[in-house]
């Protein structure tokens, strides 16, 4: 099995603010982490490597400092790390990002499986995984809560969808996006950390991927962010005091729309 885990370096969401002038995330001084969903994708890849043999390649697109999450992936057990970094990639929307990542997956051929988190916690689009699948023309299995098996060039998964669980069987290669239900990511190992420290991260530019500028970064992105606004924070709810009977009466009034509630 040759498994690629596509991951993203994201700001720790607990710390994020938005620049009201430029409508962009303020990243200064905010710690960067591996997108938490991608950690589950990585763990899933490592588990199948442990079971079936093969290798796991951690892949990301981002500025040079994004290699920190690749080293983290290697400390957990990934065998190789590939960073897609080029000024031409800057400002990419999910279309351009998917396109660029897919080009890297193609360059890494033969790849049996691409795993990634169901979405990134900064953009929350959940589009990059499906976008890669579309660009590669591979099957896509999204919102996967459990990988049941990989055998004979096929993969069987459970998709946790609204109101139920869908069991799907697909040919490989495929792109699978993973939920937190799938597993518990392992701790790094000491030997992994030692390897990660000395690892030479492979860096590919647009030229290495053979991508024209018109297909990458801002220029290759059909989407424009028109406005980002912080929703007004809600004020606290109403607090009522009284006996259970009184409270029940107040609650009933509110629910019936007679108590001055919204």
């Amino acid at each position, binding site marked *: 099995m040759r498994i690629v885990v596509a991951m993203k370096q994201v700001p720790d969401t607990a710390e994020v603010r938005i620049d009201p002038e430029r409508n962009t995330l303020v990243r200064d001084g905010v710690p960067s982490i591996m997108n938490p969903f991608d950690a589950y994708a990585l763990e899933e890849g490592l588990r199948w490597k442990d079971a079936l043999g093969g290798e796991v390649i951690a892949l990301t697109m981002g500025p040079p400092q994004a290699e920190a999450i690749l080293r983290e992936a290697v400390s957990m057990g990934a065998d190789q790390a590939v960073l897609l970094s080029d000024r031409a990639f800057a400002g990419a929307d999910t279309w351009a990002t998917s396109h660029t990542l897919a080009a890297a997956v193609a360059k890494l051929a033969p790849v049996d499986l691409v795993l990634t988190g169901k979405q990134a916690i900064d953009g929350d689009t959940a589009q990059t995984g499906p976008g890669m699948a579309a660009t590669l023309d591979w099957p896509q299995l999204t919102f996967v809560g459990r990988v049941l098996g990989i055998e004979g060039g096929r993969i069987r998964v459970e998709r946790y969808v609204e109101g139920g669980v869908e069991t799907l069987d697909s040919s490989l290669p495929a792109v699978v996006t993973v939920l937190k239900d799938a597993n518990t990511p*392992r*701790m*790094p*190992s*000491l*030997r*992994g*950390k*030692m390897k990660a*420290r000395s690892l030479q991260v492979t860096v590919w530019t647009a030229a290495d991927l053979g991508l024209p500028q018109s297909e990458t970064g801002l220029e290759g992105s059909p989407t424009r962010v028109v406005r980002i606004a912080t929703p007004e924070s809600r004020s606290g709810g109403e607090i009522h005091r009284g006996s259970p009977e009184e409270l029940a009466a107040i609650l009933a009034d509110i629910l019936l729309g007679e108590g001055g509630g919204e």
Partner: protein
Amino acid sequence: MDYFLSEDIRAIRELCSEIAEKHIRPVREELDRENRFPHEIMKVLADSDLFRIYIPTEYEGLGLGTLSLCVAAEELSKVCAGVATTYAANALGAMPILLSGSDDQKKRFLPGLASGSNLAAFGLTEPDAGSDAGGLRTRAIRDGDSYVLNGTKQWITNGGEAKVYTIIALTDPDRGARGASAFIVEDGTPGFSYGKKEDKMGIRASATRELVFEDCRIPVENLIGREGTGFMVAMKTLDNSRPGVAAQAVGIAQGALEEALVYASQRKQFGQRIDSFQGIQFMLADMATQVEAARALTYSVARMIDGGVKKFEKEAAMAKVFASDVAMKVTTDAVQIFGGYGYMKEYPVEKMMRDAKITQIYEGTNQIQRNVIASALIRETASREK
């Protein structure tokens, strides 16, 4: 204080701290209350390569030496000394093989200990032989290609959980300590069983049990070194493991200090934070100074050992006695700073105080450490006067 630790050792600290926060802190109270062995945590430590650090690279270890073990034990002890004891007791159990085992014995046993798939334990203490190891009664009588063991070992950390036991027993009872030998006994050997699990004051996540030998037959290949060298093997083992106990004590004390600092910054009395009172400030300052001094001494001894110095029994005993006394003092002061809350089980400092006590007792009581230090001083003075 900056101890200029190597990148590898800094990585060990980081990893242990992450494991302690994620896997130990959430369960430590429960492990303590239920007297429960931390199997899951040992698995995490094993998967993270932490059992490899003190084992040489030839035997699937990482060969990072005594200082690496001290840093790991300290970091784990900050959060739970019971878990840390379980971890560090493996190094103690492996030590006789590491120091005095044959290449064949090392090849047979160390890789399994390095991977963490097997735990180890060291068996010296007996009901009538604690500080006075000369009172040993367990016998190992040669019979053809085997030794037959009879006797009972007491208070053995990792007893019943370990797969590999290094045991000191008498091959020549008439010669007392000089008639002792060291052996490797594997779990499951016929005639080898376990007594009851002890209900201890502290380090309750660790398993402490009796080892019972009744006509337990082991192959002669399991003799460590030569017959009659068992006492020496045991003493060398303890000299090497004492910095680890010191590191544990440093960790316990650091953990208690950190709890006390946070509490003192939040607790308000007389309308102000209690860390604004000089009475509390002086306590905190003394605690921090003592912990740092204990750490400095411990790391220095570990570096001496890793640097290849042959004689370090005095320094190892100094580190153990000093750090464990500091741990007892600092944890007691932490409980004092917490006041009534500190005495309650809902807060972690009373456990730290109970855990600290054992570091003054095991692997040689602090009175025995002072004996070791004093006799070394007297010997050194005598040799200078010649």
